[in-house]
């Protein structure tokens, strides 16, 4: 699975309340959630984001609530990958379960800048900054987790496997 897009860069401890504020949790509509994604940290995000774009952030991305609405909003907004130094544990598990690709790669986080164009091969964990020509390697997920993500999440994966 390969992805490519422009980078939105954020700092440490990006929490689920800024990813999708609780005032919008009275719905489960993916498109409605996406229309408020990152609203409280970056009001311009939803206006600028294009299909395939990539979020790059620091430590503990997705800390706070267990709301699966957070990775759902990010995925439905068009984001193809989140690269961070580390992820909060519930967000990490939720991202896999709903099929949002994520990678931990501190070297990439340090070097990649806002607005860079980045491509990534998820199977190998190879990250390439096309703007600067630098490349980085993240630990890829084992095959069974990659299969869950490429099937679009755990439930779709189980449905496909049970067919």
């Amino acid at each position: 699975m390969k992805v490519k897009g422009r980078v939105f860069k954020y700092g440490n401890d990006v929490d689920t309340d800024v990813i999708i504020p609780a005032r919008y949790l009275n719905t489960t509509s993916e498109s409605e959630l996406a229309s408020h994604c990152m609203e409280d940290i970056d009001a311009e995000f939803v206006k600028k984001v294009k299909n395939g774009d990539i979020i790059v952030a620091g430590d503990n991305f997705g800390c706070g609530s267990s709301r699966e609405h957070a990775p759902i909003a990010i995925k439905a907004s068009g984001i193809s990958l989140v690269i961070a130094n580390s992820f909060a544990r519930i967000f990490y598990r939720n991202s896999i379960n709903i099929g949002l690709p994520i990678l931990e790669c501190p070297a990439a986080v340090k070097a990649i800048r806002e607005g860079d164009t980045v491509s990534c091969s998820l199977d190998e964990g190879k990250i390439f900054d096309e703007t600067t020509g630098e490349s980085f390697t993240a630990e890829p997920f084992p095959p069974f987790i990659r299969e869950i993500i490429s099937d679009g999440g755990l439930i779709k994966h189980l449905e496909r496997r049970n067919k």
Partner: protein
Amino acid sequence: MAMTVSQKILAYHAGLESVKAGQLVNAKLDLVLANDITGPVAIKQFEKSAKLVADPQKIALVMDHFAPNKDIKSAEQCKICRNFAAEQNIENFFDVGRMGIEHALLPEQGLVGAGDLVIGADSHTCTYGALGAFSTGVGSTDMCAGMMSGECWFKVPSALRFTLTGKPKKYVTGKDVILHIIGLIGVDGALYKSMEFDGDGIQYLGMDDRFTICNMAIEAGAKNGIFPVDKTALDYMKGRFKREPKIFIADPDAEYERQYIIDLSALEPTVSFPHLPENAKTRENWGDIRIDQVVIGSCTNGRISDLRAAAEILKGRKVKDGVRAIIIPATNQIYLQAIEEGLIKIFIDAGAVVSTPTCGPCLGGHMGILAAGERCVSTTNRNFVGRMGHTSSEVYLASPYVAAASAVSGRLSSPEEL
């Protein structure tokens, strides 16, 4: 292989002799929980893939976040849960009238207890560690899978050990203990790990203090927080917990990544400043913070001891002009007890308002949202940007003593200043 308490509970539920940190195990669950926000996401997934839940007795659905419903959309969310509970014969469906804030309600109703393995689609599910359960927050998909199978897979966590010693001073509560610890290790200081508490200081912590401490383990990134089961915990479960408590004790040579010794007698009232729970400060570093609102409630601090602490401060005093003081008993039983003890009269006489149980303002849902630039001293658990309202509003996390004292003075204050 020596194990921590958390590891022993996981091994037991996975049917294994022993487990070690990093191992992946599949384990049988005692309870699966969701609320009116996370439930509908899980139910929608469930209905696409399955017909009947594995065991309706092992599911709890609590309508607490936006209930009593704040708008049409949240009413629709509760309706999805209500219909599902009826179809699936889920008796532990807690609607308005029966409901309370989930993490106060489930222990009170005896649905969780020592030795249990619990997952909940709410990050503060880690609260039940206070009773010696392994309980952890998950997302809606894991909750859905738990309803389908009665099982969940876990990566066995390593642990941090917190040895609590000494007796806390007057006005130092479980909230001060956990804010101090989060200040010490940071909001990702226990990421993916267990926080295991022990030490002779535990005897001075009541059940409600322990619920508060385990409740906020997630604010340090932890997978779970857990206390040993002593007489205080057994007394709480007696006549309440529906199963026999199973007591697990850590092996003497269990491995911990790190041990912290916390001298409770040296702690002071502690407040976490915006916008992270790790910004913990004691009185000398508070400065002069004028406030607009106080909230006393939530799954962290809405229990009877919390209301008693607030009443101790507010008795015979008045909430400062220009400050809104909102008090939210966490369950109907707590509300009734507060009425019987005369606490509600003290609150209303002081000029506070008392709300029906709800998560309400804690997550910026309803019942006390902040305008631009407003400041709130709150006994809740998170002070992220925009958590309780406008992105320029501020939340200061504190104990019920500090929150009540601040309501009286109109400034962030310790009770000793009144």
